[in-house]
């Protein structure tokens, strides 16, 4: 095991002087799935931008895959609460979008389109969307769109997947279904993952390690290792151990929020 993402006492203040995160340190190991939880506005989305190099830190250093991050990463998969699919493209063509951008795929795409499309269809099938290749996003339900968005983040085989509240807008049943879907792809591919979420059960279900952040300016307050055996399923969420972990997180977040008042 060696570290894949390292933040070393990182601070970032936005233009207006808002100090979003301050002295934030965190390490995610290669192939590990990490979750980040914390009160609203504590800098979780900011953390995403720092790790992906979309914003440079004001102070401190960010290292991804052994390299100091200086600009936007070129290979990272990202997903958000809003699926952000292109409405004029079919599901399949939405999936091909990263391949049209990421090197070296963009140069091989024209010649090896059939192979890439087969790969995209396989990925769609693995999230239960076989047969939806030619549908447009607005012909899919919210949950289906989110599955497509997840596939789009993974199609080019990134070593790092960043998810910012990806299931926040879905109903409880769909959300739990997608936890299993995400866990399956992760267990198959073993990329490094960072998941920002408000849902503590989601964090415990999916993560190997959960970071709890303080209120703004955000820092890591505590780290919880989740050693529940995999694959986890809905039954796991009813075990006492699962309940205990969720409860511990819940208490910490309540304390943070109390402290703010």
């Amino acid at each position: 095991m060696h570290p894949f993402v390292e933040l070393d006492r990182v601070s970032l203040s936005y233009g207006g002087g808002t100090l979003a995160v301050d002295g934030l340190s965190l390490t995610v190991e290669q192939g590990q799935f990490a979750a980040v939880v914390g009160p609203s506005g504590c800098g979780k989305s900011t953390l995403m931008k720092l790790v992906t190099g979309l914003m440079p830190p004001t102070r401190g250093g960010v290292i991804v895959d052994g390299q100091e991050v200086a600009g936007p990463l070129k290979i990272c998969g990202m997903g958000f609460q809003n699926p952000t699919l292109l409405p004029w493209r079919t599901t399949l063509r939405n999936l091909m979008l990263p391949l049209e951008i990421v090197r070296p795929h963009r140069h091989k795409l024209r010649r090896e389109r059939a192979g890439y499309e087969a790969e995209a269809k396989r990925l769609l099938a693995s999230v239960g969307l076989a047969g939806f290749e030619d549908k447009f996003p607005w012909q899919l339900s919210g949950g289906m769109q989110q599955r497509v968005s997840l596939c789009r983040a993974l199609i080019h085989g990134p070593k790092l997947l960043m998810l910012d509240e990806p299931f926040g807008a879905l109903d409880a049943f769909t959300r739990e279904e997608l936890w299993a879907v995400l866990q399956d792809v992760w267990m198959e591919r073993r990329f490094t993952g960072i998941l920002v979420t408000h849902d503590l059960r989601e964090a415990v279900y999916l993560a190997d390690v959960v970071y709890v952040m303080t209120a703004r300016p955000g820092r890591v307050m505590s780290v919880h290792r989740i050693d529940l055996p995999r694959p986890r399923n809905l039954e796991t969420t009813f075990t006492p151990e699962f309940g205990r972990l969720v409860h511990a997180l819940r208490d910490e977040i309540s304390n943070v929020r109390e402290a703010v008042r």
Partner: protein
Amino acid sequence: MSRKRPAIQTLMPWLVVFGLFGAWELACIAFSVPEFVLPRPTVVFQTMAEFAGPLWQHSSYTLFTTVIGFALAVIGGVLLGLAVGASPLVYHGLYPVLIGFNAIPKVAIVPVLVVWFGIGTIPAIITAFAISFFPIAVNVATGLATLEPELEDVLRSLGASKLDILLKVGLPRSLPYFFASLKVAVTLAFVGSVIAETVASNEGIGYLMLQASSRFQIPLVFAGLIVIAAMGVVMYFLFAAVEGRLTGWATRKTEFAEVE
């Protein structure tokens, strides 16, 4: 537009047009309005038939200048819209100038154009251009500028260049805005060319109307107005149809051609 609609909805525009003409006709008869003030529609249509030759000749000239001016406006509007929408620097630099330019009544520039180019086709084309390129530029720029920040993040973290984002997202996204602006801009282009013709031309429907009014041929003036209106309506629906075909995804239709 191709979805089935109740027959009454298809008929409605015609009913309204005929209703308007009917009301106009009746009002003229009921209040015995003199012909040199407001001719009855039947008289106007008679005049139209009578002057079909000159009307055709002058309106095809107007159509010609309008289409040229409009085509230039499409090119200029798209280029300007691209520049303004893709670069914040250009946007901030040009914005006040554009607003100022748009605030100038275009009829005010015709005399200047006459000094530069003389009486004739070129002032009409330029006026049509000047009046119709602004909505095109604004709409293209708006389409480019409304990129969701999250989608931008997704693309940039994949290593997308500015050009990639423009080609893959910005342009397709601005297409519906672009086509929506075309149908508005083409009717404005008619306004521009007719304005210029009434001031500085010896051809075109505007010139014909000016001549007619100076000879108190009021029915012919109205015949000209109706021809202009008809050309405007035809052009509008032409571009509305193009818009419907090419950018159906923006209105979530199930049958349409995929763009790009």
